[in-house]
């Protein structure tokens, strides 16, 4: 089991955002989390990603109980096992695309030159080999999101967490980004959780979990391996 949550709840100022979520996600699964705004889907993603802690319950990631880890241990888990992709691309504006991609490796103590080499290789995969030296401010939204994906991939994560990764993009670019993510799963067999409002994106995953008012109201497995076909999006 890659991800397991045990009855997790999250309160903000006494207001419950998540109420007793139990979830099992296996290695290589491609899961969509859907639900209306404020339903708690992003909060669930944050708890699974170890960037927030549950008020109650436990989160297990690759057999690690995240709630038992210290802050620095959580940081290590994030930089070695989890790739994050967000709606706002969250790139560091003062460094170029290659350096942004290399940053998790540099933080992890990889030699700068080696980190940059690996970053270049991943930028090639996401099709940005010609923009490696560009700063985030000079890239289009789609290109910035590709850099963010490259940054998530460079650490060869076991899990990718994506929060509305196409939310700020036009349909065509969004489709390209999702195709890129699917290709990634195909190549790396990593687990992906995508929070999305877009039923088209959800329809191409293995499983759709629907959350409403902090509770799972539906958990539907879809036809397996649909995502492995790169042509799905073109339709």
């Amino acid at each position, binding site marked *: 089991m890659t991800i397991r949550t045990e009855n997790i709840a999250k309160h903000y100022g006494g207001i419950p955002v998540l109420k007793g979520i139990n979830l099992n996600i296996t290695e290589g699964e491609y899961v969509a989390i859907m639900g209306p705004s404020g339903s708690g889907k992003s909060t669930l993603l944050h708890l699974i990603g170890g*960037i927030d802690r549950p008020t109650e319950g436990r989160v297990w990631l690759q057999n690690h109980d995240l709630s038992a880890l210290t802050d620095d241990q959580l940081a290590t888990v994030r930089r070695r096992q989890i790739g994050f992709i*967000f709606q706002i691309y969250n790139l560091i504006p003062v460094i170029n695309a290659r350096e942004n991609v290399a940053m998790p490796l540099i*933080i992890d103590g990889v030699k700068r030159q080696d980190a940059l080499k690996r970053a270049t290789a991943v930028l090639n995969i996401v099709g940005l080999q010609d923009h490696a030296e560009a700063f985030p401010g000079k890239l289009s939204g789609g290109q910035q999101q590709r850099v963010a994906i490259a940054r998530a991939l460079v650490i060869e994560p076991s899990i990718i967490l994506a929060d509305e990764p196409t939310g700020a993009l036009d349909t065509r670019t969004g489709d390209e980004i999702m195709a890129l993510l699917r290709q990634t799963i195909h190549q790396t067999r990593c687990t992906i959780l995508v929070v999305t409002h877009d039923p088209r994106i959800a329809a191409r995953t293995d499983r759709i979990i629907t959350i409403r008012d902090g509770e799972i109201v539906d958990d539907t497995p879809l036809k397996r391996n649909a995502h492995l076909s790169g042509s799905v999006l073109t339709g």
Partner: protein
Amino acid sequence: MRRFFNLALKYMARRKLRTTFTVLAILFGVMVMFGTWTAMPALRDAKLLSAAQTTYSADNTSSDNSLDLAVALMNSFGMISLFVGGFLIFNTYRAVLAERQHDLALLRMIGAARHHIAQLILTEALLQGVVGTCLGLISGWIFAGWLMRFIYDTGIFPNIDLPAMSVPRLDALLPATALGIGTVLVSAYFPARRATTVSPLTALRPTSPQMDRRSARVGLVAGIVCVILGGLALVFGSLMVPLAGLFVLTGAVLMMPSAIALVLPRLLPRMRHLFPRTADIAYGNIMRQRGRAAVTANSLMVGFAVFIASVTMVDAMYAYMIRLFTFHMVADYLIIDRDNMLTMITSNMDGQKVLNRQMVAKIRALTEVKSMMGVRVGATTYQGKSLMLVGIDPTRSAVLRPNDFAAQSVSTERVLQILQEQRAVFVTLQVAKDFGLKLNDTLPLTTITGSTQFYTVVGIVADITVGTGKLGLILSHEHLREDFGIRDDLFLYLNLQSGSNLDSLQQLLRGNAMLVDVKSFRQMGISGVTDFTKSVYILAAIVIIPALLGLINTLTISVFERTREIGIMRAIGSGQGYVQRIVLVETLFLSVLGAVVGIAVGLVCGASLVAMFAPATLTPMTGIMQFQFPGSGILIALIVGPTIALLTSLIPARRAAHLNIVESLRFE
């Protein structure tokens, strides 16, 4: 730290103004310290060499008070500069981290641990510290050359050769480097530690950081404690007085967020009257970002405080000098050891050279001498405290005049006669206060042989005040010699017969002592004080520059954070002028607050500085430098300060006004 070197460089390159500001903030202190530590030992070596080559110098190894005093003054100024620089860097880093909160949170999200964040900040600080220190060392080298030339030109050391600038001294280079880099690292350390607490979730919330109410409360309590400690140090603890300014400055900084919440609502109605269309929105912006506004107000406050403290110090020094020069007008000439020339004005009596006894006797025998009186200095203990003894000749004294006495047992004439005939002393007001003495009290004083002699208080002298650990008593030459073994004069007052030739007198002095024409000495002294005043104003202005850069810095960050809001305001029809005025009114709010608090803090710091240097200004007859209320300085600060602040804030104001509307609306 190496792994963050590149990212730190990129941040520095992105914010050139801020980097320049940090570098400047540290450069000045390092320059003064390194310059002083390079120039002064070179001058000391040159002086020792010169003394070894001449025959008239009696004591080659005597402590060199003039240089010691100059070193103490320059060191103090260097340390103040470094402290102010360090404080401004601390404030800047707090602001920088607020601006960079999103980036830091992002780094945390992709796996940076807390210590990685601290490393990133400290790497940047280290880089800036190294650049600032290197430039400070280069400037200090140039400053050392200028300082040596300046001191050489004053003629205080007439027999030395101007030392050549050769290889930097390691004992100057290493401590100055350590101080420069250390100050930046220490200043950045606390903001860096705070930055490690940034949650990764912050990266997902593109909202402005709010002032943490708890930290504002903690700041208020800690600030009140600091101000109370400062007040107590100023009022009660003479040894603690120099710390009073530091306590109060720290307290004011800590309390600034609370002061904003307290003062600005009261200022708002007046501002509404002056700026009806912009006052409320400017006020709202400040209150919403109280932490940031406090940084801006603190930058201004420190600028004002430094200016007022300098002005207070200069005014006190000026009044003291005038008193000193006027005091010496009791005679036409003054004879003093050449090495004491500077210290007679501004140093304590330790290590002072007395005049050669035979030489004094020969001077006394000259036919040109109409009248002469020596002033001698000794020491004793009373109730376990060290007391300075000042010996005068009551039969010849024109030094003490009737209006110098706060109380006396009989007439001035008679009281001087008693001083001559009996074991009697005049005490200073401070001595009377400290020991609870009144007229006709008897003091058991320890003599040179260790025995006790009893002296009666016959006068309380108002003119003579004394500093820390140097309480003074005045007695006759005869009793000073008999009981305390002091036989030699520290300096002589001399009146000559009219039309006398000075040649034979100069012949007797032979370079051992200086003959000072008191009138020209006074003139020279006053012009020296005026030059000194100008230098201090320039130095104060240099220290204020980083404060103004700090203002630009924090306002720019504030504008940057409000980019989207400004875009919305522009989109709904606000003109560029309106946006610009909002920033200017914000500056006005904060500069009024900064000015008022800065003036109050500056007065305490000034009093503190005066108290710190006062013991070194003790002379036998003129007392110590005393605090003077710097009325004109305050007026200048109140008028010029906010004006300069407003002019400075035009830079971020114009930046805000010229933001592209479409791009601003896209800003996250």
